Every structure is written in C-alpha cells, then in structure tokens.
C-alpha cells in the first residue's frame, strides 16, 4: 500500500474487475503459457534425442545379440552334423550296420548284432554326448528303422521324411516337426552310412536335444533382463520355447510384425507387439538354409527405462522451473499491476471527493511517469475546485440573506394573521356572551311568567277567599241595621249605610278582580271561531241593555279565526257595553267592522259616544282606572283591562282612536293563525 497523504486505507479493489480481465491474470497467463511451452519443448527435444540415441543403441545391441545367437545356433548345428558324420563314418559302425542289414534281409536272428551296435555305439554316443536324445539307423532301401536307442522306433518306417530322403544324400538337419508317434516336437540331423564299397546302405539319424538347443538360444547375453530369443519356423510356429512361454514349441504360432517381416525373408530391427502383446524392440534374421527365423527381443519398457527416468527428471525439473517462473512472474506482474491498482484506487478516492489523494511514486518507469502526471492533475484539479468552493460559499451567503428577508416577511404576515384570529375569537366570545344574555333573558322571562302566574293565582285565590269575610261583614251590617233600626240614630244609619256600600263596592271589586284573573286561569283552547256567531251571543247577552238604551248595533261580515269563543264573547260584550255606557245625548250607535290585513284581522268597534281624550288612551286599559266618577258612570273600571288581557292572550293588540265628543273606536288586531305552543303553555298554566 503506497498511498499519499489523503489516502483512505482501502483494500485494493480487485473484485471490481472480473479476474479474466485483470492485467495480472493476463500477465500470469502469458507467463504460464510461455513457461509451459518452454518446458514442454525442452522436454520433448531432450526426450526425443535421448530416445533416438537409446533406440539406436538398442538396435545395434539387439542386432549383435541376434547375430551372436545365430552363430551359436549354426555352430551348434554344424558341430552336431559333424559329430554325427564322424560317428557314421566309424568303421565299426559301418561294419555292424552292414551286418545288421544283411542279417535282416536274410531273415535270421539279428538281435546280437543289433545289441552290439546299440550298446557299443549308439547308446554310448547318447550318454556321452548330451546334445542327442536318440539315434536311429534307417535302412536305405525302404526307410525302416532297423535299430534305435528308443526301441519303440524299431520297425517303423521313415521312408517319407525329409530327414531320411536328404540324409541319403549327405549331412542334413531338419527343422523341428511334430512327431505323432512320440507325441512331441523332434529335430533330426542325418548323415549317410556307407558300405565299404561306398554305397549308402543306411542313414544315421540323430534326434537333437531340443532343450539343449533352446538353452543355447535362450542363453542371455547378460545385458538385459527382458531379453528373449527364439526360433520360429516358416509356418509361424515356435521351434524353441520363448522366455515367457511353456509348451509353445510347435504348439503356438507367433504373428508379430517382426516375425511376419522375417518370414518374408527380411532381417531387420523394429519396434512391435510381441507374442504376449507387450511392446518390444526386436531384431530378427531369416536363415534360409534352415527355413527358420531367429528373433531376439527386449521389452521397450526396459529399453526406455533410462529415458523414463530422465523424463521424470525432466518433468520434475520442468515443474520446478515452471513453478519458479510462475512465482517470479507473479511478483513481476505485481510490480506492474500494484501501482496500477494504487492508481485506480487513488482515482476512485479522488473521484469520491478526497482531493488531497496522491500516489507514491516508486519507480521512474512509464508507470512512475503516469503516477506523477496523475498527481499533477490531482493538484490542478484541487486548485480549481477550491476556487469553485469560494464561489459556492459566496452564493450560499447571498442565498442565506434572501432567506432571512423572506423569513421576516413571513413573520409579519403570521402576526397579522394571529391578530385577525384574535379578533375572530373576541367576536366569538361576544356572541357567546350574547347567547348567554339571551339565555338569561329567557330565564328571566320564564321567571317573570312564573311570578305572573303566581300573581294571577294569588289574585284569584285572594279575591275568591276575600268574598267570604266580606259577605259576613255586609250581612252582619245589614243585620245590625235591621235589628237596631230603631235604636240607631241617623248618623249611625248613615254610617252603616256607608259601611254596607263599602262592602258592596268591595264585593264588586273582588268580583271584578276575580273576573280579571279568570281571563288567565279559566280559558278554553283556541278553535276556529266564527266571530259573527260570537257577536250574536254577545248581543243576546246585552239585549236588555241594548233595548234599554235604545242602541243600534250594526255589524259587517266578521271573519272566522282561531280564538277562545267564550273570551271572544266577553270581548265583544265588554266593548259593546262600553260603547253603550259612555253614550252621548243621542242614542248610541255601535258599529262593528273587520278589515283583513296580511296575517291578521283588525276588528273595530266604533261608537258615537262621548269619546276619549287621547291622553287617557293607555290609562283606560289599566285595571280599576276610571276617568269618570262612579256617580257619572258606574263600574269599577275593569272591563277594558279584561278586554286587553283577552286580546293579549290571543297574541293580538288593542288600541283606541278617538276625539272627545266625537265617539271612539276600539281596534282589535287578531292573528289569522295561532301558535299551538302558546295555547299549550296557557292551558298548562291553567292547571
């Protein structure tokens, strides 16, 4: 890690690149390939050279071994032939053979001659000379075996065999053939036996010891462990046992490339697969005089053992060299790729904003120059970015000022809004207060109504209960006057008269008061009331008064509207009575009319009476208020108070228009419709 002052201790980020794209991988791969090629080529060249050298040596060695075997074989055969020849040429051999043949031809007993021939010559020869197994003497005339070391042969005919036919002519050795009679391979060397006159009388056949011959051929040169030499006949059959064979002679054929080439008459050295299927290097020579092939072979594995060892050494050396080159190559590539990775990391850090990042420079090569250039670039960039930062700071300050101003404005607006909200709250508070006042008012109105009802109740109860003592006072006054009439003086009478009158007035007052209070307590529910009928009843009730006063009461058509009929009757009765009472000189004329307004009817009762001074227009409706003396106009002054009270109960209005001496008109405004609640509350109050 060779990072500059601003470096963050990052690990080299190799994972950023897939390994096959990394420069180090490529370098290592090139290095690997070249190392491998170098080692392979070196090994192949060295191996081939060594192989060729060893092969040449082996070829030469095997050739000479094979030629040596041939020499041994031929000299052995030759020596057996010569031995046989000398044996046949012995005078005693020739003599006894001739005698035996003569004896046999004559048909006599020849056993003595035969035994001497066998005992003195043939058996001795077999015993002394281990190169022969058996000897025959074959009669030349017919090919019959006349004597033999193996008696089973005697009497048999070999007239058709090559060794007999050729043996008649001279020394001959026949390659091995299978003898059915004795059940094994045999090899004969034959030579003629001559009579003293030079005529061939028989053939001496020596049966060669095949084991001895094979031993001679197999005799190892001592130069090799896998050396194998054998003879093959013209039909590919083994004549001698090979090193790795048992009972192969004339039992097994061999068809290796070497033998095939050899039987075609060639002599050579070659590499081929032998009778075992093992790859060998073999030298072979064709021996035409015996029609056999001599083969000497050596396993290739043994031949090449040294170069296999050498190959292994080469491979070991190669592996070491190869590994070393890989290691060296690896570190070499690191020397290139590490600075590059440092640069990459530095560039990355720089890009991430660490402007002080610099790369350490460790070499003066191209990468060093590149690193220096990078550092220069980083420095330049850092300067530029510093200027840029200053500009940004300035801009940011301006921005902050602007933001402060905006904030002030916003605060003002906020305050104004808060004030408005406060006003609204005050307004709401006000409305709440008003509502509360209204509620208080309603409560007070209810209290007032209750106290009013209480008052009515009081008035009713008081006036009702007052009547009884008053009646008692009046009764006892009258009784006092009647009983003590004569005993009382005039003053007393007068006084009593005043008291009775007072009691009578008081009784009237009480009755009036009772009537007045009854307007609130004795009431009927509103119903649609025909005012014409109501007026009729009132006129009927006042009939006497009307006739008495000679009054004329006229009426317009009156409406039908919701009202309490008895109270309506009382209303008309009071007003008409009032009109008659305050009459002028001429007979009273009462007129009742009705005018329809938007939602009410105005009923007017006008007369031609004395009229009312406008200053008394209000007073006349107050209870017990009188404008005139009792003497002028009787009455307690309760009638209009009751009337007004009836009108008010009907939610109407009553007023008077008049001029003194000109008559008066009482106007009653009654609504066309009554609210049910009012009615209910009124009836409720009555209970």
């Amino acid at each position, binding site marked *: 890690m060779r990072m500059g002052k601003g470096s963050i201790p990052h690990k080299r980020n190799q994972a950023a690149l897939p390994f096959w794209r990394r420069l180090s991988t490529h370098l290592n791969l090139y290095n690997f390939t070249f190392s491998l090629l170098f080692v392979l080529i070196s090994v192949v060249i060295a191996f081939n050279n060594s192989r060729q050298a060893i092969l040449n040596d082996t070829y030469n060695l095997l050739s000479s071994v094979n030629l040596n075997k041939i020499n041994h074989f031929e000299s052995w055969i030759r020596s057996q032939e010569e031995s046989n020849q000398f044996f046949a040429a012995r005078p005693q051999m020739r003599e006894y053979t001739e005698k035996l043949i003569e004896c046999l031809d004559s048909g006599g007993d020849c056993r003595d001659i035969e035994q001497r021939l066998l005992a003195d010559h043939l058996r001795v020869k077999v015993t002394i000379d281990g190169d022969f197994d058996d000897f025959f003497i074959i009669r030349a005339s017919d090919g019959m075996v006349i004597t033999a070391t193996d008696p089973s042969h005697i*009497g048999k005919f070999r007239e058709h065999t090559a060794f007999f036919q050729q043996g008649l002519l001279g020394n001959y050795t026949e390659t091995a053939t*299978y003898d059915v009679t004795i059940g094994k391979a045999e090899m004969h060397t034959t030579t003629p036996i001559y009579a003293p006159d030079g005529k061939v009388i028989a053939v001496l056949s020596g049966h060669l010891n095949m084991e001895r011959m094979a031993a001679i051929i197999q005799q190892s040169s001592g130069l090799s462990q896998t050396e194998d030499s054998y003879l093959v006949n013209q*039909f590919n059959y083994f004549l001698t046992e090979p090193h790795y064979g048992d009972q192969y002679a004339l039992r097994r054929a061999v068809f290796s490339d070497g033998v095939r080439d050899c039987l075609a008459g060639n002599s050579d050295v070659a590499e081929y697969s032998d009778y075992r299927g093992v790859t060998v290097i073999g030298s072979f020579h064709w021996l035409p005089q015996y029609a056999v092939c001599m083969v000497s072979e050596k396993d290739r594995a043994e031949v090449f053992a040294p170069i296999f060892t050498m190959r292994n050494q080469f491979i070991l050396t190669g592996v070491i060299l190869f590994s070393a080159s890989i290691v060296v190559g690896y570190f070499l590539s690191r020397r290139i790729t590490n600075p590059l990775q440092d640069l990459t990391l530095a560039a990355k850090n720089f890009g991430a904003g660490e402007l002080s990042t610099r790369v350490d420079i460790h070499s003066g090569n191209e990468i060093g120059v590149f690193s220096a250039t990078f550092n220069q670039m980083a420095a330049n960039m850092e300067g530029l970015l510093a200027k840029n930062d200053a500009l940004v700071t300035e801009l940011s300050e301006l921005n902050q000022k602007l933001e402060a101003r905006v904030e002030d404005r916003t605060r003002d607006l906020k305050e104004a809004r808060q004030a408005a909200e406060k006003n609204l709250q005050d307004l709401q508070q006000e409305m709440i207060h008003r509502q509360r006042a209204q509620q208080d008012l309603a409560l007070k109105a209810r209290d007032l109504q209750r106290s009013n009802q209480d008052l009515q109740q009081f008035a009713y109860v008081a006036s009702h209960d007052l009547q009884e003592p008053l009646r008692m006072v009046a009764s006892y006054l009258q009784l006092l006057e009647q009983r003590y009439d004569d005993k009382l003086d005039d003053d007393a009478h007068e006084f009593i008269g005043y008291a009775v009158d007072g009691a009578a007035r008081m009784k009237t007052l009480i009755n009036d008061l009772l009537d007045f209070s009854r307007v609130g307590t004795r009431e009927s529910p509103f119903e649609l009331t025909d005012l014409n009928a109501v007026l009729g009843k009132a006129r009927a009730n006042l009939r006497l008064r009307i006739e008495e006063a000679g009054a004329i009461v006229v009426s317009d058509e009156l409406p039908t509207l919701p009202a309490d009929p008895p109270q309506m009757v009382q209303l008309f009765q009071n007003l008409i009575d009032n009109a008659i009472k305050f009459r002028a000189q001429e007979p009273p004329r009462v007129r009742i009319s009705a005018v329809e307004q938007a939602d009410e009817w105005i009923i007017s009762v006008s007369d031609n009476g004395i009229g009312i001074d406008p200053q008394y227009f209000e007073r006349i409706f107050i209870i017990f208020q009188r404008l005139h003396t009792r003497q002028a106009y009787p009455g307690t002054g309760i009638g209009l108070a009751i009337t007004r009270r009836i009108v008010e109960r009907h939610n109407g209005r009553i007023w008077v228009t008049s001029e003194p001496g000109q008559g008066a008109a009482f106007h009653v405004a009654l609504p066309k419709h009554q609210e049910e609640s009012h009615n209910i509350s009124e009836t409720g109050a009555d209970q």
Partner: protein
Amino acid sequence: MFRIKAWIFTFLCCCQFLSACSPPPAPDQITVQIKWVHQAQSAGFYTALEQGFFSDENLQVTLLEGGSGVDPIAMLTSGQADFAVASPHTLFMAIDSGAELKAIASIFQISPVVFVSMPQSAITRPHDFIGKTIAVVGVQELEIQLQAMLDFLGLDAGAVTLVPHSYAYDQLVSGQVDVQAFYTTSGLPRLQEAGYQVNLIYPGDYGVHHTGDCIVTSASLLEQDPALALRFLRAFSRGWRYATEQQDQALQATMRYALEQDLELQRSMLTAAIPLISTGRQKIGEIDPAAWQALHDALLDQGFISRSIPLDQVIDPSFIERAASECRDFHCQ
C-alpha cells in the same frame, strides 16, 4: 450451443448419406455339414463362429451335426449343404461315381486313425496282427488303412480276422478282439480317459500317409462363386488357427456345442487333434498332393475306385493357399 447442434446435425446427415451410399449387404447364408457329432474335432468351426470370423466375412453359417447315418457327401450332392467335412476316400468314391466335388482344404494333415491293442497282448506292430482278430469292418477308412498298411509291409491280409468295428471299446478291453482301430481324436481319448494303457500302432509308421478329414464343396460352387469359397476358407483358417493357439477359448466354444458335456474328454480330444492339424510341416488347411496321391493309389489298389482319377479333379489347393496368405494372427487382409 447452436454450433454443437449444427455439428451433430451435420454428422448425422453424413452418417445417413454414407449409410445410404453403402448399405451393408445381407450376409450370405451357408450350410456346413460336419462329419461327426459336435465335439472338439470341429473346434475350429465353433471358434470361428464364436469369435465372429464368419461374420467378418459376412457369412451366416449353419452347422449341421453329423453322426452315424449322416453322409456328408450326399448332403453336398443333394444341395442340402454348401460345404461338408468328409473323409478323403469318400470324396474319391463319389467322384468315381460321377459326382463333381472337390476338396479345397485338409483339416487333418495326418490321419487320426490308430490301431490299438491291449498291453498284455504283445501286439506292438502290424506284423503281430497275423492270426489275430481286428475290429475294422463297417468303417471304410479303417479298412483301407489296415489293408494299405498290410500291403506296405507285404503281410497277408488273409491271415487276419476282420470283425465289425464298434465305436465302443468294450470288445477290446474284454479281449473279444485283439486289435481295434480308433480315431485319435475321439475314440482313443475316451479309452485313455477310462484309464487304459494301450499299445498304439500308427499307420503313418508303416508307410501309410493318408490325410484325414477335408473340406469338400461342389465344383459348380467353386466355378460360380469362388469368392464365397475363399471367404469361407479364410474364416475356417482363422478359426482353426485360433483354436490351436487359444485352446482354452476353443474348449469353451466347443463346450457350448458339444454333445458330451465332459470338459476333460473334450480337452483330450482337442489336444489329440491339434498336432494332426498343425504339424509344423504345413500350413493349417494346406492340401498335400502326395498324401492324396497315396490315398488314390491305395483306393485303386483295393478296388474302392474303379479307375485312376487325376488329382486335379479331386483337389484344388489354390483356395487354401490364398486364404492362408491373406490371413495372419487370426485376422485377414
């Protein structure tokens, strides 16, 4: 992936194209009449079948089992067999009778006939046959060889008593007969298997050098389809070569066919047969004209044939010569 598929497709197309160009010809059906029951003496045929040597020649071979009562020559002349294994003398006699047949290969270079006597009889050579009873009658080959042997030795055939031959050895071991002829490839191993030590008198030691069984076919087949005969002989040659060298495998192949499932007996038969087939003097299957001439002369002498027959009417060695030269190491070129 696409490339691999493309290559496979191309490869398959090529295969189809090539196979369309050279459809494998249907194998030629041939029938071979062997001489005797299935046993080791025919091991070469079994190995050729087992090892696929006939298939290599595109031949489908049916082996017809022989036995007493089966006349291989008659099977040939009637057209029931294409090739037959027969004794050479029967071929001579058939040709003498006008059949147009030829031997194209010898299986046994040396006749497997041997005369057997019990050791206590002291009969060790043909000269000892005089005045004895010999079981040969009924098997012409045995009669011919006995007569030829006696003729060669100048012995009087009238001085021996010939009695009917039997393939069993009871009459020999019980002393009913003094000498009985056997085949070294079948009867003799059976006798030796039973533990008898016997004297063996080979005709080959007494001037009789006849060959044994040979491959016979019709002259017309050789004329019309010589290639078929060559292909057959190539497979035959390889089969016997394989049998002589890989005796264990030959024995296994034999055991799949053999009538007598006696491994040791079959092994003895094979061991006896191999030296007669592979003598070290000739190639396997080679025809030795001298031996055939000797047989011819003997047959003529003994009156089995009525006339002298030129050898080229009886044998054609050229096929086996060519087959042997084309094949090596069990493979043919």
